């Protein structure tokens, strides 16, 4: 276990994990312990906002894992994110109990409103946190497994796969908009009160959720690093670069793809589950194909196949979105977002981190060479390079 961890942590990964860990500790402390008058105080709304960015970052990380390392461009990852969110939302709805507008101890408000007589079967068990938490993994994971099992076995690749993932999220969007689906229809799930007995709105809960999002991002990052630095990761890159050749070499391409796709969907589900209590609502618009495509551009901006780039891209683009859509420039945000799509693909195909790594590469190679020479001069019989 430890050797996997050590192998997966190169210098930049250590720096990244350290930064996230520092943020996870510092921001809640600055929010809770520093008086509001202080310069160092972090207001609660910023905690919630950045908590949201961290969830997006985890979603971006999950997309980078499959797109950056395995070449699977999913235009429907928002579906897994939203499913995880709905699983959490269902738990939060059940926690409301009789404090709803209609005061029904069993049925959520929208069900009373829609004349439901009994709780639909798939709502049972969501009053228990462990059940809801396992569903956060299971529902996106199982859907991704079934979908991927069909898609990868019949070798649906490239743009075809992108289009059917888009169809998947579009079908779910249409379904969740329906009232008789039992998920609140157009309005979705909202008006949450408690999570594990703590008030969702409370400052302390928000800070804790923020810290949890950081930890989830960190764990997600470590899992991704562990995957991509392993032998499995090398095969994934081989599939990305030359799928038929990898297959001819005797690897079961579809099994590798299915594994990484399912892991990625589970990560997206967790991101959605952490997102919902922080924004206080989940509704079908999260399934909109546009959202999933937007998530892909975060990865492209940061640099695909870099993991840290996905996180950076998600935070940067979303920060820009908040900054521009809240000011006088709001009507021009879509112009900027559109231009971002075009310019990044045209001028910055490696993304920010990817480009930086590309620039550093000669310098790094030089340094490695220098250290190798130094080692060679010390030891007369060096081991062959890996």
């Amino acid at each position, binding site marked *: 276990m430890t050797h996997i961890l050590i192998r997966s942590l190169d210098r930049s990964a250590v720096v990244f994990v350290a930064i996230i860990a520092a943020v996870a500790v510092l921001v809640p402390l600055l929010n809770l312990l520093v008086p509001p008058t202080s310069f160092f105080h972090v207001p609660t709304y910023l905690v919630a906002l950045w908590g949201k960015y961290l969830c997006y970052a985890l979603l971006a990380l999950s997309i980078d894992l499959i*797109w950056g390392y395995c070449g699977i*461009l999913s*235009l429907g990852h928002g579906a897994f994110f939203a499913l995880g969110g709905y699983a959490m939302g269902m738990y939060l709805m059940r926690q409301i109990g009789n404090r709803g507008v209609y005061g029904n101890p069993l049925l959520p408000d929208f069900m009373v409103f829609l004349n439901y007589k009994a709780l639909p079967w798939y709502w049972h068990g969501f009053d228990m946190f462990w059940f809801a938490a396992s569903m956060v993994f299971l529902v996106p994971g199982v859907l991704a497994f079934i*979908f991927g099992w*069909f*898609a990868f*076995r*019949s*070798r*649906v*690749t*490239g*743009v*075809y796969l*992108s*289009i*059917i993932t*888009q*169809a*998947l999220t*579009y*079908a779910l969007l*249409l*379904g969740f*908009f*329906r009232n008789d689906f039992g998920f609140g229809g157009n309005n979705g799930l909202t008006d949450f009160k408690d999570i594990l007995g703590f008030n969702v709105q409370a400052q302390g809960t928000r800070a804790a959720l923020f810290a949890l999002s950081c930890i989830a991002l960190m764990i997600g990052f470590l899992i991704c690093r562990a995957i991509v630095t392993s032998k499995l990761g090398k095969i994934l890159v081989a599939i990305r670069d030359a799928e*038929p050749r990898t297959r001819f070499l005797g690897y079961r391409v579809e099994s590798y793809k299915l594994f990484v796709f399912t892991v990625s969907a589970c990560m997206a589900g967790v991101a959605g589950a952490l997102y919902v209590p922080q924004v206080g609502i989940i509704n079908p618009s999260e399934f909109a*194909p546009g959202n999933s*495509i937007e998530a*892909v*551009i975060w990865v*492209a901006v940061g640099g695909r196949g870099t993991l840290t780039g996905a996180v950076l891209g998600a935070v940067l683009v979303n920060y820009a979105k908040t900054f521009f859509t809240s000011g006088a420039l709001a*009507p*021009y945000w*879509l*112009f900027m*977002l*559109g*231009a*971002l*799509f*075009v310019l*990044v*693909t*045209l001028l910055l*195909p490696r993304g920010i981190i990817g480009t930086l790594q590309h620039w550093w590469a000669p310098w790094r190679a030089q340094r490695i060479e220098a250290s190798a020479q130094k080692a060679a001069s010390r030891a007369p019989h060096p081991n062959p390079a890996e």
Partner: protein
Amino acid sequence: MFDRLIRRVCAAAFLCLLAVALTAPAAAGPFEDAVAQLSNDSFSDTDAAISAIASSGNERALPIIQALQDGRLVADPASKKVYIKERDGKVTDAASGEGVAASFANLGSVRLNNRLRRAVDAAVGALTLQSPDPVRRLQAAQAVFKSRDASALPLIESALPKETNASVKRAFAEAQAAILLAKPDAPETSRIEAVTVIRDRGDQDALALLNTVANDPSPLVAQTAQAAISAVQSTLALWSGVQNAWYGISLGSVLLLAAIGLAITFGVMGVINMAHGEMVMLGAYTTFVVQEVIRTRYPGLFDYSLLIALPLAFLVAGLVGIAIERGVIRFLYGRALETLLATWGISLIMQQAVRTTFGPTNREVGNPSWMSGAFELGQITITYNRLWIVVFTLGVFAVLLLMLRYTSLGLEMRAVTQNRRMAASMGIATSRVDALTFGLGSGIAGIAGVALSQIDNVSPNLGQGYIIDSFMVVVFGGVGNLWGTLVGAFTLGIANKFLEPVAGAVLAKIAILVLIILFIQKRPRGMFALKGRAVEA
């Protein structure tokens, strides 16, 4: 008092006479007598007069009864004269219809009670049954069919053999049958005949009517009715199938129109153009601008607005398409997924550009006169705009097919589709072909926008609604094959419309999406996939 009685007897006699010879030429005497009788201000006299006038066959009968119905009929008991106050304030003599210049301030309207009002309504119905205008006769017969008013039976029976207009004759027969079925005391043979007539009508009304006699006391009638009910039900099922098929064809043609341009760009260049829907939107807005100019400058040309908009939309969308190809897509060949993202960005920019220029709300695009309205075909209603769109789509498809087959650009396009490198080695300027192909695909999307502006809301989001469906059509039909797109579009359209009555609109759509996802598992390259080396390219 005594003379009143005599008059009533006379009137009754005339009534009997006239009931036999309904459309006998207007007998001057009796008609005028009956009209004069209205001035007596006695309900029973008025009743008799209404019957006499209604059955007189005189052309003045309908205006008089209608005036009576509206309370515009005034009478002078002294001179036994009856006048009609026309709606425009003029006064005419009721019997002759000639204008009169007199003051009638002291005259009262001919009064009615509830029984008489019913008589008047029936008389109006009966008189319109004899109207010289076939459309009004038809309406009257249909009204009788609905009301099953037994009092209209003698009138219909006498009018039926003389009727020359076929559709009116059928309506009369159906009305007669409806009355007979509602009358348990009518002879059994004629009622059985009536069941046959109603069965041939074969629509929902017929079914409802037959259901009323399915448990008739007469076993023979009940039996025929039950047989007729199952016959009508199968006719209805057939027609609803025909209707679903028509809706499906209509939806399929819309899908085909939206997808056909995409099929070309995707097929030839392997490029996923997410901004394709925005080309459709550009076409629709071009139509809007053309119509605005026509409305303000040349209102007489409105009916030609679509014809003017078609080439303009082709040009606008085509030029924008070429600009996108030269400016962005050219640099991304071989990187299909990046192209997808870049064109998505372009679609966002175009949507927002249109939103800032034209506003976020729906803009009104009118239907020219030849595209509005509908006609009946059997039991289904076909609107002209849908029909024209089907025709137009097939036309565009045919032109495109011929273009690909017989022009040099078409030849080059097909060559590049099949093997880009080989085509380049043969001296085809592939990058020029790419630009023109993209322009052509976008231009077709533009003219699709002209057609879709007639049936959809022209808003900045117009294109978004079609993009996923168009992809489904192209992917389902198979890339690089126009026939595949045609079959794909109509299959999806018809399947969708046949699923809709069973599952509801949204579930039908979801079912179609799921079916396509499953279908792609079976045939990852669509129904009509290209074979050979092109597949891996």
